């Protein structure tokens, strides 16, 4: 069954006919064509698809698009505004918080959720906020440094 779903994606209003069984991950990537949000596992194991829904970090791979009616969905593509990287994007870039880059959008979105709630997180807060996001390249060291540096900027 399809239904019309209207939502805000990175601040822009959209209305799409979506199947009830469409995952938000596929909506974002295929329907809206925003491929920055990644799929790394078969469901809920890696955090690569983390997006914000009404400001909360959520797994797009375990969310139905039809359940996002009226909500504000934010993805990595919405982070740079006015030709300027967000502080987290800038910091992940400068501090090598990204290597292969595949976990990076999820990492940045999970970090973004943290910083909106808590602009001066401790290292423990950072670890806690990113605990559902796996990275296989960095050993997480420079990810933590990137989030810390973004707070200072």
């Amino acid at each position, binding site marked *: 069954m399809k239904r019309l779903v209207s939502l805000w994606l990175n601040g822009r209003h959209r209305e799409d006919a979506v199947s009830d069984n469409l995952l938000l991950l596929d909506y974002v*990537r295929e329907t809206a064509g*925003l*491929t*920055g*949000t*990644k*799929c*790394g*596992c*078969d469901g809920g*194991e*890696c955090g*690569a698809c983390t997006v914000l829904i009404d400001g909360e970090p959520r797994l797009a791979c375990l969310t139905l698009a039809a359940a996002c009616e009226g909500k504000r969905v934010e*993805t*990595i*593509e919405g*982070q*740079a505004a006015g030709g300027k*990287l967000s502080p*987290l*994007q*800038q910091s*992940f*870039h*400068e*501090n*090598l*918080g*990204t*290597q*292969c*880059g*595949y*976990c*990076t*959008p999820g990492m*940045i979105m999970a970090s973004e959720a943290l910083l909106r709630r808590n602009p001066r997180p401790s290292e423990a807060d*950072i*670890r*806690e906020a*990113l*605990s*559902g*996001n*796996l*990275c*296989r*390249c*960095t*050993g*997480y*060291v*420079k*990810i*933590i440094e990137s989030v810390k540096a973004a707070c200072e900027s």
Partner: protein
Amino acid sequence: MNEIASCASHGEGIPAPTHAAGRRQPLIDGIEKVTGRARYTTDLPATQALTGAILSSPHAHAEIVSIDVSRARALPGVRAVITGEDCDVPFGILPIARNEYPLARGKVLYWGEAVAAVAAEDEQTARAALDLIEVEYRTLPVYISAAEARAPGAVLLHANKPGNVEREVNNTFGDVDAGIAAADLVREESFHYAEVAHAQIEPDCTLAEFDPESGRLTVQSVSQVPYYVHLTISECLKMDPADVRVIKPFIGGGFGHRTETLPFEITAALLARAARGTVKLQLSRAETFTIHRARPETDIRLKIGMKKSGEITAVDAEVVQRGGASAGYGIITILYAGALLHTLYRMPAVRYRGFRVYTNTPPCGPMRGHGGVDMRHAFESLMDMMAETFGLDAFAVRRANLFVAPYQSVNELKVSTCELAACLDWVEQASGWRSRKGKLPRGRGLGVACSHFISGAAKPVHWTGEPHATVNLRLDFDGSITLLTGAADIGQGSSTLLAQIAAEVLGLELARFRVIAGDSALTPKDNGSYSSRVSLMVGNAALAAAEDLKRQLVAAAAKRLEVGVEDIECLGEAYRVIGTDRMVSYRDVVKSALEVTGPLTTRGTYTVPLDMQGGKYRGAGVGPSPAYSYAASVVEVSVDEDTGQIKVEKLWVAQDCGVAINPLAVEGQVQGSVWMGMGQALCEETEFVNGRPLRGNLLDYRVPTIVESPPIEVKIVASYEPNGPLGAKEASESSLGSIPPALAAAVAEAIGVRLPGLPLSPDRVLAALHARRREERLKSALAGAR
């Protein structure tokens, strides 16, 4: 135009050349990654693509009696159905060991092996078509362990390999028996290592576009080795390689998973041709685990002879690797396990026996630290145990065995530089070893270990006689320089490094450069990103290409300034007559340089000098390298004796990688590498039940999370490698192997028990603690009875 005026128009005095090398350089493609604009294979626009899907074997070992695809073919929306019948060319990375087919022919050798594939108009139809394919199997005995597969009477997986042994290695260098006889202590121990997986976060995916009008094929895939993908696909599809183009998009990690052509890549191409269109073949995480190609389950029996001084007199090692169902890199892996014994410490005599065994498990392959990691754990652990007998400190026993470079090992490997002594000094000091070791509270411990790795194999796996690496630099009217390389940036930062090298030579800012990496229509062939070869080999090629370009620019400047080339110095954004203020801007030099010839392309190549290509014995091709990198690590742990849980408190790593061209990236590589070693040491393992993989997901294959990942302090020790570009050698694999033994040693101090293998999962640690307590109780009971 007046030369001086043209410079003055920049509003500057005499410009200084930029030093792009040696500085902490963010990735040249980092902005794409942090903005989500980077397109990985699965992200490529392919709205018209058909969906590919694979029917996999439900058995771990069986004959295929029949396959009926007629009902699947008849399903509306299905555009192609293929089976093993559609490709009769075996493939494999080593020309001497090709025994894998993209789709099984006659037999299936592991659970999940591809048997048939479908291209359909949508996912649902593709899945429905798979359900309509009827396969009849006759099951065969399943061999999961190497011992089962080697047992007398076992069915052979490959008819030409008796005993299911793919390769037996028997190498002796030096007089082992005399060395053992001369030792003050000889000790032998056995170790068992679980199989681990790369678990790169990007699942496997290939996009294959077949153009029916031209008969040409374009493949974009998750590869570390686009050239091999190109070669294998054209062979398997019996196509002229000129009709194939392979493009490497952004790659979400490799770690060795993607260093050979993988069956699904060929299958995607076969499907695209059969469907006469574009096919996207996206694998699930579970399927990606089944592709595997990682570090095998390994058994090691190791004997060391040691003098009271700690000096090692001889080594006798036997290794059995469960290689999985096909050859892949197996021969190389079993050879590395022996070859890498020689170049970390001074080894007077080494006997090595290795068995690479075919089993009904997914094919193993190279994984970061290829071949050396499990052996390094066994070696460093046994060395520690023996040092304890002599009352020697763990640092002392290692120092007793250091060699001074240049050094030639008994198996004829040449080490030009080695700063392992400095690495040991740093980790000893930084970790506070001297004041803390042995004085930590119960449940806490420190351990040290060393490791090393090659900077690329001196002999490429596929010998063509061509240079090992080629880089082109393209300079056009706009003054921008495009670096063209086949080397695959898989997240390690190779594109950034190559641009830094070229920019350093030319004295220019990185902003003048673009890098195009891995597009067979544009970039020169490259063997790929494996065995840590890119920094040194492709780096040298980039250096040569840049030097050639600089020569041409200097010549153009000399002509323009009407002096000899020897009178010109390159200042990057200007070229000047030495000792004067006469100069010409870079842009004007470019104009002059292009005047007659038009746009310039220079070529730099690198070939490993013949005297570094190793000995003449069987297997001598594995081990030689133009340079070896070294690392020492100290690990601090605390262990919860109630739960068996290990907490890694901190890692200290000192790395000798020659000159760090990008210290930021070196730190990142070392941190990632040692952390991966930590995962293998703590909790990562695969497991099979009745031939089925039990942990084919990221919940049960336990990649450490950020919470239990420790702070990692990295020191890049001062070093200069004459064979490397600007003094550099590899930095991504050499440190990994030091962590499992250092961690195990730290655990041994913390709980007084040494476990004979990996991983040190909580259940194993607790079982070992309980066994120790039982033993102690028994001992005290016996003592009481006396």
